[in-house]
């Protein structure tokens, strides 16, 4: 007899597997450290250092702006001289790095959740338990997706606080978030996390340990990171509609990848590769 279901999923089974996976992540330094250090570096230390640098007179970004695409340069140039460094770096250039965080966290966790079970030799035990393939898959997916989004959003909250606080004496206003930032963080970054997840699930089913999963997954995810980094600044210069549309495309890709992952994630296939 299955537990209570929501949308065809056994809620108790999903919660049991999810609770175990999240508990395991909390206890694993190898997983927790990269999950916390990278966001700390990108989302706290970087704005802190930029904010502090903006207080001095020595940094002038005008020469640098000449090297940037016209739209970005002109957008920054509309701001007063002393605000330009802050607007350029914290308003535009850090944004692409934000997409690295959910992508990286989801990839690390998915590798641990799927390939890690094989490596720890715990997968067979789970396959012999009365949990349906789809419940197991969804629990594993959530166990990677939710922390990735949580880290991105909490990191963003820190980023907002640190950026606005450190740059207050320069900006004299809350310059973040903007609507476009909000779209990137709340609409596009979860989609990017889901893409990373979809890739890592497919990879993890085929490999026998986390290291292989990270190596193989990295080979696929890295070009996406480069693509994301390259395009996000442009996205922030576009209107909200375009940003929303881009997010929808990323979600569609994520949906397709994860649907394919769900089809590939069968008990038989997992057991056959033990």
């Amino acid at each position, binding site marked *: 007899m*299955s537990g209570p279901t929501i949308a065809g999923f056994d809620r108790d*089974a999903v919660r049991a597997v999810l609770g175990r996976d999240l508990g*395991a992540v909390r206890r694993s330094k190898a997983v927790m450290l990269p999950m916390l250090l990278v966001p700390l570096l990108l989302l706290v230390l970087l704005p802190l250092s930029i904010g502090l640098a903006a207080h001095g007179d020595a940094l002038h970004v005008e020469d640098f702006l000449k090297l940037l695409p016209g739209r970005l340069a002109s957008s920054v140039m509309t701001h007063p001289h002393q605000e330009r460094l802050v607007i350029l770096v914290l308003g535009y250039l850090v944004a692409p790095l934000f997409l690295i965080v959910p992508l990286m966290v989801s990839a690390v966790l998915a590798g641990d959740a799927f390939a890690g079970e094989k490596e720890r*030799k715990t997968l067979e*035990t789970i396959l012999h338990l*009365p*949990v349906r393939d789809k419940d197991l898959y969804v629990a594993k997916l959530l166990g990677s997706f939710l922390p990735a989004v949580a880290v991105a959003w909490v990191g963003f909250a820190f980023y907002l606080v640190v950026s606005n606080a450190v740059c207050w004496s320069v900006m004299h206003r809350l310059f973040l978030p903007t609507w476009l930032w909000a779209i990137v963080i709340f609409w596009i970054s979860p989609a990017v996390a889901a893409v990373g997840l979809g890739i890592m699930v497919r990879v993890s089913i085929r490999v026998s340990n986390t290291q292989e999963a990270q190596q193989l997954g990295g080979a696929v995810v890295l070009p996406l990171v480069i693509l994301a980094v390259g395009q996000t600044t442009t996205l922030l210069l576009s209107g909200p509609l375009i940003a929303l549309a881009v997010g929808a495309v990323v979600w569609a890709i994520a949906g397709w990848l994860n649907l394919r992952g769900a089809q590939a994630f069968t008990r038989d296939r997992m057991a056959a590769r033990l």
Partner: protein
Amino acid sequence: MGAGERVIDCENLTRSFPSGIALDALTLDARPGEVIALLGPNGAGKTTTMRLLNGVLDPDSGRATVLGLDPWIQGEELRRRTGVLTENAGLDERFTALENLEFVGRLRGMGATETRRRGNELLERFGMSHRADVKVQGFSTGQRKRVALARALLHDPELLFLDEPTSGLDPAATRDVVDLIGSLAADRGRTVVLCTHFLGEAGKLAGRMAVLFRGVLHAFGTTADLAAQLWTGFEVRLDLGGTASRELLIRLGALPAIVQAVPTEIGALVRVGSRDDVPLVVATCVSAGATVFGVDPRDPDLEDVYFALEARAAAAGVPGAQDERGMAEGPAPDRTVDGPLVDAIGSISGDEP
């Protein structure tokens, strides 16, 4: 499930992987309260059989019902009623022994209180209560195995699949586990499928044995049934204080009561039609001038049967039947099946033993 019904009933179960056929047309059954042993070297198909019967792997062909359910359609329902001990204990090292049990209890729909109570009870039963709240990371192989056994028994399953349940255990724990398995079957009517390399353990626990080589079932039945298929008559070990002479073996071979006679290091191994023929064998030895220090009439045990089957499979060209022995009782004893033994007797007349 009624006493006459079969807990496991499978027919022509076949499964292959890209590396080759793992199981080829397996047909076997198990009754309530019965222990059946799956025997064979590594790669024989024992674990694949277990996975197929618990609905974890799908077959390429064949059919099965387990506890009255179709494992591949009603897998979840079936797995609620089965308990599995995998070869690797499969415990998550990041959690304590009790937390490992609690996770499984939750997935089996047991309440938190019930899981803790039952988990603590079983950990105590296996001498692990003092480590219930310790992370599994530092556990020895034997300790892990005991926790994994507790996990397999947590929900009091009707059918148990146990893959090497005593490997890594010390002698006292081994005896305890063997007794427990025996009592689960005999006293509680639980059915057990035992995959093991330990022939002594299988011989003690299992009513029937399935002997597999390279995915093919070579024999299935009680030790006595299998022996009857392999040999005729009754085996007697003669202790003559040294290898029997060629003349004595010829005289023994000439007796109508003697089916076979082969030399051993301490005398001879003869096969007679029945126990009544033993005095005649002894008298023949004495009349031939041999000193008889001991006469040991014995039925073939599982070890004899297993290695005879292995030899027969190897003779039939089954790859891996002898080159991957890995069974725990050491090298094959000096026993062959009827055909080769008859040949051996035939050769005695011409060659020194």
